[in-house]
């Protein structure tokens, strides 16, 4: 019991020290947000490109590019500010955290300026006003008139979105199913998991135009001021930047530029849907496989390196070293990889700006290290004590005994388990897609958005994962067999 308490206090102590240091320095009282952007010469836009026609990916010659109305707006703003536009993709959920942690300067992602959001975000003027629609299967279209037809039914909406709240509050007795991606919601609709999907009118329009199986219904929701409008989000206190951007927004409104932007988006969407064969998107999948492999291989390498270190720490006789080893291993194994990924990207990102890929690799490596440490420790402990005694009785030192006798034998037990860890990392690394690393899962979603096809990209990704894990297992088995002599 005393031991347990010791470990707990050690772990908690570590976290609190981390947090104390991690407190973001209070927002500077002086607002130099505009000057900062001008000084660095770039304007970083955060967006979740799965929301046509606002923002989505197009595939041009195997390369994907974020396009859509919001991108055109961002381009105009950057041009007016005389800076370069940089687009960062990530999931909708991560956008505001990214804003807060200085990963992006602004968020343009079809976002409505709700009172709740206004508490933590400064918004520009409204640049687009649209209604909220409900997309349904065409076969059921006659059943639904407006939101009230969905009483006692299940509807879908993006997690954390306005539409989600609308569904909860304004449809009687409804169940609202929240998913991260519109593409997944459409898939849920088609498989009758939900009867309708609430989304903004232009988006609904885009889906219906591109998928003959879908129809749309005007939701006729009671929309508050913020709820049918779209604006640009900024860090709290960026008044100077907001004011400057509002000048561009005013122009957009007065010249009705969104009409042109939406037309452009529409033509891009036709490019996408012209060729929806998976071959056409081989480049997407290829890139996804490449990133998944890069993350896995580098993480395995550092995982083994650090894992060995932590295993030795845990086996050490020095009580302090031992406890640190135990605390690390237990803590990492006791928290989800997803949270670790977010912690590294957003938390550590407060001090040093690390790219998403690096953050993903760091998090996966640190996570893997804990599991590798246990594999190595188990392998070392499984070598019979008699082997050590025999070596010591011959005059071998502790180190000689370890390197010549114990470790080579431990390795034989460690190898297969390490191989399994390698294989499972290929699968588990997929979690990094939440911070926008373009691994296979991320690309799968991109292809789903681009092609309006739900299932086929999943099948392709599944097969690709299987090919990777299966061939790796085969290779590892081969080495394992070669190591087994006796």
């Amino acid at each position, binding site marked *: 019991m005393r031991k347990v308490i010791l470990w707990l206090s050690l772990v908690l102590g570590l976290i609190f020290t981390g947090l104390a240091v991690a407190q973001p320095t209070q927002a500077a009282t002086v607002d130099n947000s505009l000057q900062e952007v001008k000084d660095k010469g770039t304007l970083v836009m955060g967006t979740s490109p799965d929301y046509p026609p606002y923002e989505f990916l197009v595939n041009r010659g195997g390369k994907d590019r974020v396009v859509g109305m919001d991108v055109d707006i961002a381009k105009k703003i950057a041009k007016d500010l005389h800076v370069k536009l940089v687009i960062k993709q990530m999931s909708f959920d991560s956008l505001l955290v990214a804003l807060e942690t200085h990963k992006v300067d602004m968020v343009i992602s079809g976002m409505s300026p709700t009172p709740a959001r206004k508490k933590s975000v400064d918004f520009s003027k409204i640049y687009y006003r649209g209604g909220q629609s409900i997309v349904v299967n065409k076969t059921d279209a006659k059943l639904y008139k407006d939101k009230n037809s969905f009483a006692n039914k299940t509807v879908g909406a993006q997690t954390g979105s306005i539409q989600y709240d609308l569904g909860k509050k304004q449809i009687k007795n409804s169940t609202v199913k929240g998913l991260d991606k519109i593409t997944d919601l459409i898939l849920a609709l088609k498989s009758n998991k939900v009867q309708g999907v609430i989304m903004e009118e232009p988006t609904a329009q885009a889906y219906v135009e591109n998928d003959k199986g879908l129809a749309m219904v005007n939701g006729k929701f009671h929309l508050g001021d913020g709820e049918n409008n779209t604006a640009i989000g900024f860090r709290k206190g960026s008044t100077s930047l907001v004011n400057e951007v509002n000048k561009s927004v005013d122009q957009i409104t007065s010249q009705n530029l969104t009409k042109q932007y939406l037309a452009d988006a529409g033509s891009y969407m036709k490019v996408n849907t012209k060729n929806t064969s998976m071959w056409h998107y081989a480049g997407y999948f290829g890139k996804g496989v490449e990133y998944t492999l890069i993350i896995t291989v580098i993480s395995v390498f550092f995982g083994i390196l650090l894992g060995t270190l932590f295993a030795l720490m845990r086996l050490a006789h020095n009580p302090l070293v031992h406890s640190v080893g135990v605390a690390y291993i237990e803590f990492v194994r006791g928290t989800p990889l997803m949270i670790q990924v977010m912690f590294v990207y957003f938390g550590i990102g407060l001090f040093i700006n690390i790219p998403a890929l690096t953050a993903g690799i760091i998090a996966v490596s640190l996570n893997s290290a804990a599991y590798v440490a246990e594999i190595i420790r188990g392998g070392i402990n499984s070598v019979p004590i008699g082997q050590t005694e025999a070596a010591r009785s*011959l005059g071998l030192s502790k180190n000689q005994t370890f390197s010549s*006798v114990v470790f080579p034998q431990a390795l034989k037990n460690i190898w297969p388990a390490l191989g399994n860890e390698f294989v499972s990392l290929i699968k588990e690394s997929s979690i990094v897609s939440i911070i926008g690393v373009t691994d296979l899962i991320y690309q799968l979603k991109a292809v789903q958005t681009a092609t309006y096809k739900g299932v086929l990209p999943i099948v392709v990704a599944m097969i690709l994962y299987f090919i990777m894990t299966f061939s790796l297992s085969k290779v590892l088995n081969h080495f394992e067999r070669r190591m087994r002599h006796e």
Partner: protein
Amino acid sequence: MSKMIEIKGLSKKFGKTEVLKDLNGTVEKGQVICVIGPSGGGKSTFLRCLNLLEQPTSGQVTFEDSDLTALNEGQLNQLREKMGMVFQSFNLFSNMTVIENVKLAPMKVKSMSSDDAQTLALKLLDQVGLKEKADVYPASLSGGQQQRVAIARALAMNPDVMLFDEPTSALDPEMVGEVLKVMQDLANEGMTMVVVTHEMGFAKNVADQVWFMDGGVFAEKGTPTEIFDHPQNERTQDFLAKILEA
């Protein structure tokens, strides 16, 4: 005769249980000591205290004029190489071939060249009758063969004394003889040996001294004739009676 090992007031506790109680004894150069006694009496612990695989709780073990209990790790490693040890469960290194098992310590500890170690190892394997098994892995050998390799491995460090802990107890009966033969040859060549054993025949024929251990003490010490033919201590008599019955 000169003293090889001298044990003075040796005690060993595991936690609160006192396993060895104030042991004294002397092993002369060239002597063969057989330690016999009932299970759990402390024989293995005693033997392991001689080369400090087990740290004595108190008392002294003097080997060739050095008090082992006062040495540091490095000095201890140097003296351990002169005390070969053979275990009940052989403990051959399973990741190495037979000859690699024998060569390891001379190369690592004495920095012998691989060629010299090879020559030495082949000579020793020949001595225990296993030259032709040099390149196989231990797992493919019988128990008796493994134990003979273990003896060769210990001899490769050219030890001044050999410690045996029930070297034949884990063997099928038909293999006991081949191992005892190797040990008998060693004794005949003048090797100093401390042997924990249940082989009363071996003790009778080969030992210079038999130490009977029970409950952590040497209940009786004497020549094989004294111990086997005229045991004085009641516990010795009981033990021998039971052994002979079996």
